[in-house]
C-alpha cells in the first residue's frame, strides 16, 4: 500500500471557486481510478489560492488481475456467429470453453502498475476538469486546442510513494518541485512524498490545509478584536473567502474615524465586507464600533503596521464615499426621488418603476381596506408609493444590496410612520410581518405575478428568469406568517384591474380577462404551496383534495382544513372512511346513470342506519365547515364510518329489485356528497 500526492499549481484561483474545485478533483480522481479498477479509500483534498492538492492514502501497487468471462453463441449456432465471436474476443476456437452447448470466452487481464494508471489519469483529470470559467494563455493559446484552466497552470507535482509519476500536460511535466509562499519563499522546494508535503510547505510559509487557514482567520480575527476590547461580528463567508485569498493568513486589526459611525451600520459593514473583505467589530454596547479586521497574506517585517495603515486609508476613502452618498441622499426627502423612477424601466412593455410604485400604492391601500379594516389604508398607500424610491438614490446605486434598508433609513429620517419604515425595510425578505409591511409586500409581488401571467410569461421547467416561483412562495409565506385572511383570486383580479387601467400596459397584455389570470395563478400558488408545505410534513395529496373542491383561495383557511384532514387521515376512522368512500365511488362510477324510481323507505335496517347517520352528519359537517371548525367537520365524517362499514357488510347495493338498488345508489351518492363537503377524497392517495 502506497500513498500518492498530486499538486496542481496555478496562478491565483478565485476564492469562490476553490470549494467546487476540490469537489471536482475528488470526483474526477475517483472516476479515473475506479475505471482502472482501483479502489480509492480516504482522499485528502486541500486548496490554496495557488494550488490544488490531493493525497490518496494506501493505494495498491497494482490493479488486481481480473478474469473476464464473455458468453458466446451456442455451439450449434451457424459458423458465422462463432467467427464473429472469435473476432471480438481475439481468441481461437480451442481457447473457448463449451459449457452445456454454449461457448464461453475467459479472458485473463493481468494487473497494471498503479503508477502507470496514475500517469494516464493525471492528464485526463486536468483535461476533463470543469471550472465555472476557464481560459487559455501563453504561446500554446495560438491553437484552439490549447489547454484551458481557471488561470495559467504552472506546475504539477505527482509522487507515488517516493517515485515520480512521470506525465505531461500541455508542456508542463510533473516533477518533485513546487514553490513556497509567493513573497516569503519564492524559490523552488523539493517534495519527497505525500508524508512530508504539508510540513515542507508550512516551512515555506504555506498552510496547505484550507480548514486550518480558516481556523487561523476565525480565531485570529476574534482575538485581534478581543485584544482591543471589541467583539468580532462573525461572518463565516468572509472566513472562507479570506482563507481562499491567502496561503499564510495574518488577521490584523485596523481602525477608522468614529465620525463615520453616523452612516448606517449596514452601509459600513457592506463596504467593509464586499469591497474590502474585512470583518467589522462591535463595541461593548453591542453596536458597530470603529474597527475592522483585515487578513494579510504575509508576516510583514514591521509586524503589519504599514499593512494596517494602508488598509485604514482605503477603508476611510470608501467610507467617505459612502458618507457622501448618505448626506447627498438625505438632502432631499425620499419622495423627491420618485420622478427619477420614470426612467427606470421594468421588463419591456411593463412600464417604468414609477408606474409600478403607483400600482403598489393603490393595491396596498386596497388590501389594507379589504383585509385589515381596522388598520390604515392611507399609510399602506404611502408606504407602497415610497417602496421603490430608494432605487434612485446614490447609495443604492452604489450598493444595490442595500435596497429597502436605505429606503427605510431615509423614510425614518424624513419622519414617515413606523409602519412605512418597517414596510420599506422588510419588502425584500421572504416572510414579511406586520400589517403595512404585508400590504406592501403582497401588492408588490402580486403585481409582478399578475403582469407576467397576463403577458403569458411563466416559469417552464428549470427556467424562471423573473423569479416568479419565488414571488409566489414569498406571497404564501407572508400570508401565512400574518395569518392574513384574503381571497387570492379577488386580489389578483384587483391587481389586473389596476394594471389594465394603464393603456400602454394593457396593449402589451395577452390575457385581458382578470378572472382567467386569477384562476391560472391560483393553480400556480397551489403548486408552490405543496412544495412549501412538504418540508412541514403536509401531504400534497391532501392539499389537492381541498383545492379540488374549487373556490378555495384563502390560504389560511385552506391549510387549517388540510391539517385537520391530515390528522383525521392518521386515525383508523379516517383510513376506513377513505376505503368506504373509494368503494362507494367505484360502485357509483360503474352504475353510471341510474334509471328507475328509488324506493320510498329504507329497505332494511342497515339502509335506515346509514340514512339516519347521513341526516345527522351532513348538516353537522356543513355547519362545521361554515364555521371553520375543521376538526368538527372531520368528527362529523368520522360518525359515518361505522354506518358505511355496516352498510357494505349488511346489504348488497346492486339488489335485483331496481327500486332498492336505486335507493341504495342514492344513499351512496349522498354519502360521497357529504364527504365532498369537507374534501375531495378521490384525490387522496392510499
Amino acid at each position, binding site marked *: 500500500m502506497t500513498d500518492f500526492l498530486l499538486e496542481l499549481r496555478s496562478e491565483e484561483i478565485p476564492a469562490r471557486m476553490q470549494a467546487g474545485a476540490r469537489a471536482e478533483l475528488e470526483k474526477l480522481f475517483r472516476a479515473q481510478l475506479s475505471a482502472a479498477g482501483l479502489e480509492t479509500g480516504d482522499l485528502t483534498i486541500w486548496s490554496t489560492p495557488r494550488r490544488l492538492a490531493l493525497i490518496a492514502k494506501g493505494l495498491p501497487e497494482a490493479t488486481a488481475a481480473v478474469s473476464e468471462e464473455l458468453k458466446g453463441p451456442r455451439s450449434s449456432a451457424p459458423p458465422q456467429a462463432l467467427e464473429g465471436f472469435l473476432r471480438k474476443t481475439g481468441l481461437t476456437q480451442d481457447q473457448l470453453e463449451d459449457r452445456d452447448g454454449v461457448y464461453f470466452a475467459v479472458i485473463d487481464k493481468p494487473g497494471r502498475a498503479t503508477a502507470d494508471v496514475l500517469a494516464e489519469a493525471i492528464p485526463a483529470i486536468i483535461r476533463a476538469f470543469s471550472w465555472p470559467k476557464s*481560459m487559455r494563455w501563453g504561446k*500554446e*493559446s495560438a491553437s484552439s486546442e490549447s489547454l484551458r484552466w481557471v*488561470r495559467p497552470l504552472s506546475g504539477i507535482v505527482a509522487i507515488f510513494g517516493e517515485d515520480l509519476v512521470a506525465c505531461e500536460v500541455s508542456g508542463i511535466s510533473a516533477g518533485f518541485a513546487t514553490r513556497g509562499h509567493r*513573497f516569503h519563499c519564492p524559490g*523552488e522546494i523539493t517534495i519527497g512524498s505525500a508524508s512530508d508535503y504539508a510540513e515542507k510547505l508550512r516551512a515555506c510559509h504555506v498552510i496547505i490545509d484550507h480548514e486550518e487557514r480558516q481556523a487561523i482567520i476565525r480565531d485570529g480575527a476574534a482575538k485581534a478584536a478581543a485584544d482591543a476590547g471589541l467583539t468580532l461580528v462573525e461572518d463565516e463567508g468572509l472566513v472562507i473567502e479570506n482563507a481562499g485569498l491567502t496561503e499564510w493568513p495574518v488577521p490584523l486589526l485596523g481602525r477608522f474615524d468614529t465620525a463615520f459611525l453616523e452612516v448606517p451600520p449596514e452601509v459600513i459593514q457592506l463596504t467593509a465586507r464586499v469591497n474590502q473583505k474585512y470583518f467589522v467589530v462591535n463595541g461593548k454596547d453591542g453596536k458597530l464600533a470603529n474597527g475592522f479586521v483585515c487578513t494579510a497574506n*504575509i508576516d510583514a517585517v514591521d509586524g503589519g503596521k504599514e*499593512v494596517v495603515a494602508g488598509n485604514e486609508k482605503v477603508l476611510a476613502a470608501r467610507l467617505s464615499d459612502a458618507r457622501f452618498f448618505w448626506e447627498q441622499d438625505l438632502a432631499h426627502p425620499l419622495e423627491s426621488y420618485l420622478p427619477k423612477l420614470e426612467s427606470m424601466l421594468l421588463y419591456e412593455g411593463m412600464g417604468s418603476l414609477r408606474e409600478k410604485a403607483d400600482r403598489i400604492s393603490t393595491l396596498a391601500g386596497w388590501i389594507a381596506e379589504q383585509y385589515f379594516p381596522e388598520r390604515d389604508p392611507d399609510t399602506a398607500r404611502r408606504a407602497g408609493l415610497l417602496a421603490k424610491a430608494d432605487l434612485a438614490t446614490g447609495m443604492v446605486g452604489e450598493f444595490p444590496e442595500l435596497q429597502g434598508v436605505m429606503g427605510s433609513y431615509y423614510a425614518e429620517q424624513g419622519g414617515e410612520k413606523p409602519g412605512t419604515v418597517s414596510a420599506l425595510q422588510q419588502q425584500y425578505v421572504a416572510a414579511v410581518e406586520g400589517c403595512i409591511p404585508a400590504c406592501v409586500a403582497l401588492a408588490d409581488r402580486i403585481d409582478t405575478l399578475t403582469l407576467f401571467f397576463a403577458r403569458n410569461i411563466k416559469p417552464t421547467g428549470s427556467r424562471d428568469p423573473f423569479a416568479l416561483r419565488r414571488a409566489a412562495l414569498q406571497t404564501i409565506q407572508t400570508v401565512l406568517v400574518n395569518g392574513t385572511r384574503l381571497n387570492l383570486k379577488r386580489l389578483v383580479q384587483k391587481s389586473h384591474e389596476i394594471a389594465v387601467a394603464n393603456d400602454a400596459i394593457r396593449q402589451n397584455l395577452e390575457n385581458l380577462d382578470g378572472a382567467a389570470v386569477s384562476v391560472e395563478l391560483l393553480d400556480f400558488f397551489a403548486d408552490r404551496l405543496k412544495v412549501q408545505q412538504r418540508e412541514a410534513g403536509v401531504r400534497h395529496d391532501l392539499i389537492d383534495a381541498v383545492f379540488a373542491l374549487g373556490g378555495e383561495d384563502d390560504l389560511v383557511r385552506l391549510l387549517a382544513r388540510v391539517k385537520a384532514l391530515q390528522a383525521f387521515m392518521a386515525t383508523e376512522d379516517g383510513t376506513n372512511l377513505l376505503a368506504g368512500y373509494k368503494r362507494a365511488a367505484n360502485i357509483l362510477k360503474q352504475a353510471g346513470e341510474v334509471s328507475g324510481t328509488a324506493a320510498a323507505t329504507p329497505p332494511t335496517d342497515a339502509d335506515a342506519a346509514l340514512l339516519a347517520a347521513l341526516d345527522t352528519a351532513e348538516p353537522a359537517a356543513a355547519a362545521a365547515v361554515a364555521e371553520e371548525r375543521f376538526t368538527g367537520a372531520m368528527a362529523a365524517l368520522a360518525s359515518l364510518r361505522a354506518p358505511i362499514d355496516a352498510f357494505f357488510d349488511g346489504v348488497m347495493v346492486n339488489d335485483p329489485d331496481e327500486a332498492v338498488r336505486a335507493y341504495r345508489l342514492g344513499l351512496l351518492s349522498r354519502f360521497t356528497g357529504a364527504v365532498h363537503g369537507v374534501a375531495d377524497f378521490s384525490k387522496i392517495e392510499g
Partner: protein
Amino acid sequence: MRRRWANAAAIFCTCEGIAAVADGADKTPLSFQDMILTLHAYWAARGCAILQPYDMRVGAGTFHPSTTLRSLGPEPWNVAYVQPSRRPTDGRYGENPNRLQHYYQYQVILKPSPADLQEQYLGSLAAIGIDPLLHDIRFVEDDWESPTLGAWGLGWEVWCDGMEVTQFTYFQQMGGFDCKPVAGELTYGLERLAMYIQNVDNVYDLRFSDAVGDVAAVSYGDVFLENEKQFSKWNFEVADTDTLFAGFKAAEAECNRAIEAGVPLAAYDQAIEASHLFNLLQARGVISVQERANYMARVRDLAKGSCKAWIDSQSERWTAKYPGWML
C-alpha cells in the same frame, strides 16, 4: 526517474525571501514622472517597445489601437505606454481628492502572455518602491469585460494593502474574436499608485516632478487642478448636446465608410470618437436608460466592425507568416 530520500531530514525552508527593495525605506519616494520613467525603463529592459499615448480622447488604455487591434492575430506584440484617459462622468470639479475626469493609465501588453508575467509584474512594483514583505500584495479575482469593445478576459485586480493598484488580464476575446494567442494586459492606475507611494491623501498634492536646482517642484494640482474644474463644467453643463449627437452620427457613418473602404485603422479612430462622444452625452444626462443600451450596442458594432476589417486586411499576411494559424 526515481528519487530517494535517505531519511526525513529536518524540514526547513531553504529558499530565500524575495529580494527586498534595494536602497532601504528612507529614500524619498518617486515623483509621479519618475514613477513613469522607472516603469518605462523596467519594461523597455524586458523587450517592450515604449510607445506614446494615442492622440485621441479615450476612456482607458485598452482603447489604444496598440491594445485593441494588436491583441488580435498571431504576431508577437510587446509594448508599454502611458495613456491619458477621460471619464467625463467621474469629474468632480477638482473638489474630490480621489476622482478625476482625466487621469493616466500605464498600459503593458505582452503577446503571447509570458509564463512569468506575474513575476515580471511584481518586479515592476518593487522597482517603483513597493516592498512585498512590508506591503500585502494580493491577486483578487476580477474578470474584465468591455461591452463597448466586445471584449473579455480573466484575471485579477491587484491589491496593495487593500487598494486596487492594477488590473491584470489575460485577454480571451477582442471585438468578438478569439485572441490567438492570448495577450497579457497590465493596467496600472498611476495616480493611485503614486498616492500610495508618496503617502498623500489628495491627488492634487502629488509631487509631479521634483525640484532641480532653483527650478521648483511641480505638483499634480499645478498641472491639472484647473483642467478638472473647467472640464467638469464643460462635461456636465456646457457641452452642446446637439453637436455631440451630430458628432456621434457623423463618426458612426464615417467609421462604416472607412470599413467599406478597407482602412480599418481609420475606421477604428471613428469608433473611438463615437465612444467618447457617447460618454460625454452620458455626462450631460441626456441619454435615458433605454437609449443607453442602444448607444452601447452601436458603439460595439463599430468596434467589432473595425476589428473584423482589421483581421480581414491582415489575415493573408498572418497566415503566410504563421502557417496553420486560424481565427
